[in-house]
């Protein structure tokens, strides 16, 4: 039984982590493409229109990957988490279905027009389709975050006689305060991915002395958007969310910070290894009182450690929560530093000649992916041992009818299939990057469309 719980968790974790590689880029790029289109259309600047077309090609390939790896997610609630689905369907089914009804239909309708319809529309109509794609993808993020937020912080529910959760308020569910904070943080994280990738590819082109004109647009837009998003991610977004988690899931914050003992003037551990057997942090580099300040605005306030809660309510993997949180914060800080520096050089008009700064931008490209993934690992392993916080334990949620052999079989199947997909995807992206932003939309690069009647 214990084995099946962990296996089902790994099954879901693997498929969703692979899935989220793609939406974080497409949601970020959707916004940046609107920015590029807006500049291109209002100033009639062809550099920006060309840039928008190029990023639409990258967007399209990532979008397809996001769609095909997203479909399994909706089914996996039922396949591997049947008891959880049975009891929560009346509530979680609402935002999950809203995503399909309100955003996927819209996205699928406008994406085709946006990608293949530029010649058939006025420039403002085409701009409008890019806005519709942006709204569709950001709405889709909203509904999914609201579903996750309910699992993190259940609100507006009652429990029926047979144990099912039932909604008591539509707006209560859709405006869950936890979800609003989580949404800001997630979307800002997606914008960071979009802008770091855009700036990084621009830096790559400049460093390899190719497509200079387009590359400067990429770096310019990427650095400005990246600066705004990385700053926003820390304050107000990260700060507000951290406090809210501290208020409503205190054991989670204690695990994130590696705080085993309740204490006044609680330290913030920058580096260290939690030892859950001896309840200590090894090799700590810590700043006393900083955690108290972050949570309560007072350096000597008492912060509750894990010892204040029964062991059965501790997250089951404290080192994983601790490390993923620290990786997220650490990489976020590095990206913020690089963006501050690049923005300063851009302002001084020295960035495009400053090779080491361009190298930094290029080397940052993997960081937002790792940081976003680590943030989700923090949130979802930090919520443990609950599948619905405080109401339903993860051990009560998995499908008892499915054997470990079946779960292994399909987990390995997903690994093989996604491994193959990764190779094909990277090959295609590499080809788009090699052709570069000046490539005409040739027969080889345009997806099939039929002509209007």
């Amino acid at each position, binding site marked *: 039984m214990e084995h099946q719980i962990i296996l089902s968790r790994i099954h879901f974790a693997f498929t969703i982590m692979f899935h989220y590689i793609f939406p974080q880029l497409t949601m970020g790029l959707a916004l940046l493409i609107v920015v590029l289109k807006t500049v291109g259309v209002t100033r009639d600047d062809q550099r920006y229109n060309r840039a928008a077309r190029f990023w639409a090609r990258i967007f399209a390939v990532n979008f397809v990957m996001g*769609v095909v790896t997203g479909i399994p997610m909706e089914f996996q609630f039922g396949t591997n988490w049947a008891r959880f689905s049975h009891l929560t369907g009346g509530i979680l089914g609402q935002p999950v279905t809203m995503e399909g*009804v309100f955003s996927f239909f819209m996205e699928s*309708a406008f994406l085709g027009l946006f990608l293949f319809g530029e010649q058939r529309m006025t420039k403002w109509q085409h701009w409008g389709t890019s806005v519709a794609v942006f709204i569709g993808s950001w709405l889709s993020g909203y509904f999914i975050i609201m579903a996750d937020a309910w699992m993190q912080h259940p609100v507006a529910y009652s429990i029926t006689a047979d144990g099912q959760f039932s909604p008591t308020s539509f707006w209560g569910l859709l405006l869950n305060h936890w979800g609003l904070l989580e949404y800001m943080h997630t979307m800002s994280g997606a914008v960071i991915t979009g802008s770091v990738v855009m700036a990084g590819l621009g830096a790559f082109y400049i460093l390899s002395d190719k497509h200079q004109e387009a590359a400067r647009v990429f770096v310019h837009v990427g650095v400005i958007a990246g600066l705004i998003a990385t700053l926003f991610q820390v304050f107000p977004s990260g700060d507000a969310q951290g406090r809210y988690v501290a208020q409503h899931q205190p054991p989670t914050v204690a695990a994130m910070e590696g705080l085993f003992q309740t204490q006044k003037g609680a330290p913030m551990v920058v580096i260290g290894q939690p030892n859950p057997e001896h309840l200590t942090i090894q090799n700590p580099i810590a700043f006393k009182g900083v955690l108290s300040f972050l949570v309560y605005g007072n350096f000597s306030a008492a912060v509750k450690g894990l010892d204040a809660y029964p062991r059965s309510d501790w997250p089951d993997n404290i080192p994983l929560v601790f490390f993923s949180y620290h990786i997220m914060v650490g990489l976020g800080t590095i990206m913020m530093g690089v963006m501050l520096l690049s923005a300063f050089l851009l302002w001084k008009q020295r960035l495009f000649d400053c090779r080491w700064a361009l190298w930094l931008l290029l080397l940052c490209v993997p960081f937002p992916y790792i940081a976003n993934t680590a943030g989700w690992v923090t949130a979802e392993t930090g919520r443990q041992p609950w599948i619905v916080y405080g109401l339903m334990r993860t051990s009560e949620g998995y499908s008892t009818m499915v054997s470990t052999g079946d779960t292994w079989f399909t987990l390995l199947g997903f690994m093989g299939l996604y491994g193959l997909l990764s190779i094909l995807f990277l090959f295609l992206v590499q080809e788009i990057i090699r052709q570069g932003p000046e490539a005409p939309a040739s027969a080889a690069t345009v997806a099939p469309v039929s002509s209007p009647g």
Partner: protein
Amino acid sequence: MPTVWFILVGFMIAAYVVLDGFDIGVGILHIVLGHTDIERRMLLRAIGPLWDGNEVWIIAGGGTLFLAFPLLYASSFSGFYMPLMVLLWLLVGRGVSVAFRTHINSSVWTNFFDVAFSLSSAGLAAFYGAAFANVLRGVPLNSQHFFFEPLWTNFMPGAHPGILDWFTVIAAGVALVALSMHGAIFVALKTSGTMQVRARNAAMLLWGAVVFLAASEILATVLIRPMLKTNYLTHPGWFAVPSGVGVTLLLVLYFLAAGKDRAALYTSAAFLVLMIAGAAIALYPAVLPSSGNPQYSLTIYNAQASPASLRLALYWWLPGMAVAIAYFVFIYRMFRGKSAVYLP
């Protein structure tokens, strides 16, 4: 209230089968009808702007099932675990095949995705048919309304059936030929010249197979699940629906022979909808019958979400779907007519 949601879920399934059905059908016939690269591009252009919207119906439909009948969603998805996972892999492979195929000019690359596209489409059609038949035949539900079915046991629809037995294999065949026919008619509508003639001939050939297999399946259903006749015998007016199946099927052949492709596509869609409606009427109020103790069957009453969930969902679901349908009308009008013969 649960009856309303029974109809709405049925509507989602029917819309999905009719819409994604034609692009799945085109996919099955992709390597059969398309002999050259240009012809295959032509086929892909016909479904290019439509297939991905069509696929949203299964996502929205799955969500609606999760929302309205959580116990049915939980029980059937975990019980049909193995075939569902295979279905997911097929959906992934198929989506990638369509989207990636045209991006690189290399016959190795395109041939790989052409075959992957056809095989995954055929697999999907067969899966849907078999899944449908599993619901009609019933599954070994326990007292908690859960079950687990292996992919196959002894291929007999007895008390311990597998996903595949002779009954569900026939149904897989029905879906395979019916969706192929539906796709061939769509190709005939969207093309002209040689391809149109080829597609019409394929559709007529497939028509014969649809008649034979669908008739066998309906007969087999009555034989192995006689209780499915109950609703019809108590309300004989419903016999209009299965009669409609026969009528629409005859009309498909008539319109094909007359070269009226649009009418043929509509009647083929009506045929698919009536097949689903006929099964839904036979099952109601059950949604997943038990193959053993009838007490364990899942019905709209024991599988439904709380009344508050169902009431609340209706407020946003109906206007939301109205808007979604408006998008569809808009897109289909935008891309109506023949798809261009040659891609420059």
